[in-house]
């Protein structure tokens, strides 16, 4: 009789432990899958926002009354205004080189690929909104050295 009771208790205990293990495994599985999802999302987001660097060679054409020096100083502001504050979070623009003899300059755009496209549009339409000088994109490249020979 005693053996029978002990056997029942042992079976009950093992069943309970099995149930606890099963519940824990299920909840752990859910948590692990949620963590994996989060990780993959983060990896994807990271991949999407991979930064690229592009250089654009520009020719600056000014009317007689416009000041080319003032334009080059104000150029970053003009394009940034057109891009907007939120766009500038992942998109930076700097003047890499200027040639005052040929009125050409090279600008560096750092950000995702969409940012490069948006900067191209912004610098193409800046003269319509602000007037003054026209910036004409001539060439684009991923390497500064490739554009340097065109800036003479």
């Amino acid at each position, binding site marked *: 009789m005693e053996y029978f009771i002990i056997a029942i208790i042992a079976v009950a205990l093992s069943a309970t432990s099995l149930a606890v293990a099963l519940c824990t495994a299920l909840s752990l599985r859910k948590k692990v899958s949620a963590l994996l999802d989060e990780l993959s999302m983060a990896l994807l987001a990271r991949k999407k926002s991979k930064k690229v660097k592009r250089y654009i060679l520009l*020719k600056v*054409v000014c*009317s007689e009354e416009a000041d080319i020096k003032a334009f080059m100083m104000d150029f970053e502001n003009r394009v940034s205004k057109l891009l907007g504050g939120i766009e500038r979070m992942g998109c930076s623009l700097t003047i890499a080189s200027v040639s005052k003899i040929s009125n050409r300059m090279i600008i560096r755009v750092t950000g995702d690929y969409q940012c490069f*496209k*948006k900067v*191209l*549009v912004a610098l*193409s*339409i800046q*003269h*319509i*909104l602000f*007037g003054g000088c*026209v910036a*004409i*994109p*001539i060439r684009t490249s991923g390497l500064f050295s490739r554009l340097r020979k065109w800036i003479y």
Partner: protein
Amino acid sequence: MAKEPRANMLVFFESCKDVVKYVAEDNASILGLDKSFFDLCKDYLAELEEEVVIMPRRIITIDRKSIGIITTHRKLDALTAFKPLDTQSARVLAKIRKSTVLLVSPNSLKYVNEAQVNFLKQSHSRKFLEIAFGEFVKLLALNSRSMHASKAFYSLGNTMEKALKLDIGVAASGAIENYPKCLFTNHIDALLFSMGFSKRERRMILEVYPLELLKVWLGEE
């Protein structure tokens, strides 16, 4: 750098001297000028040293009341582009048995859409679309409330894509206001690039179709 055979179908100028400046700065080798301005500067333009084809242009707005102009007004002294302002006139333009240029602007985009491109394909004669990029850029730059820029560019992109797919001629013009407030050919190229068109498609729009349009117009003349 050597000039590419690119075309800017229409640019507005204030004085004849500005044309020289534009030709010196831009890559365009085919340039469209307003007919009245062209007549005014005819002598001045003849002395241009650059190798540029300059053609007189005329834009005619068509609606239900003035639909008769399409058949009666066929003067060949200027390359005419028709701007339809209702569906009926757009369909009539598609059915004409002569090569015709339809202007696509934010006003006419509703009528010159993908459906209209299908009608243009079914036409017996060669039809061309002229995209007035200047007017579309105005929506971006001047923050117009009449039409959302994103909607306009989305619709324009679809129409152009359909036209290129069906081999309907597509050319581009950059006129907004008088020079220098206009789009140069490189600006148009950048806009097309940002809209997602490939290098081949951009060459077709800026070089191949304008040349064909010029050839068709000179053939008619």
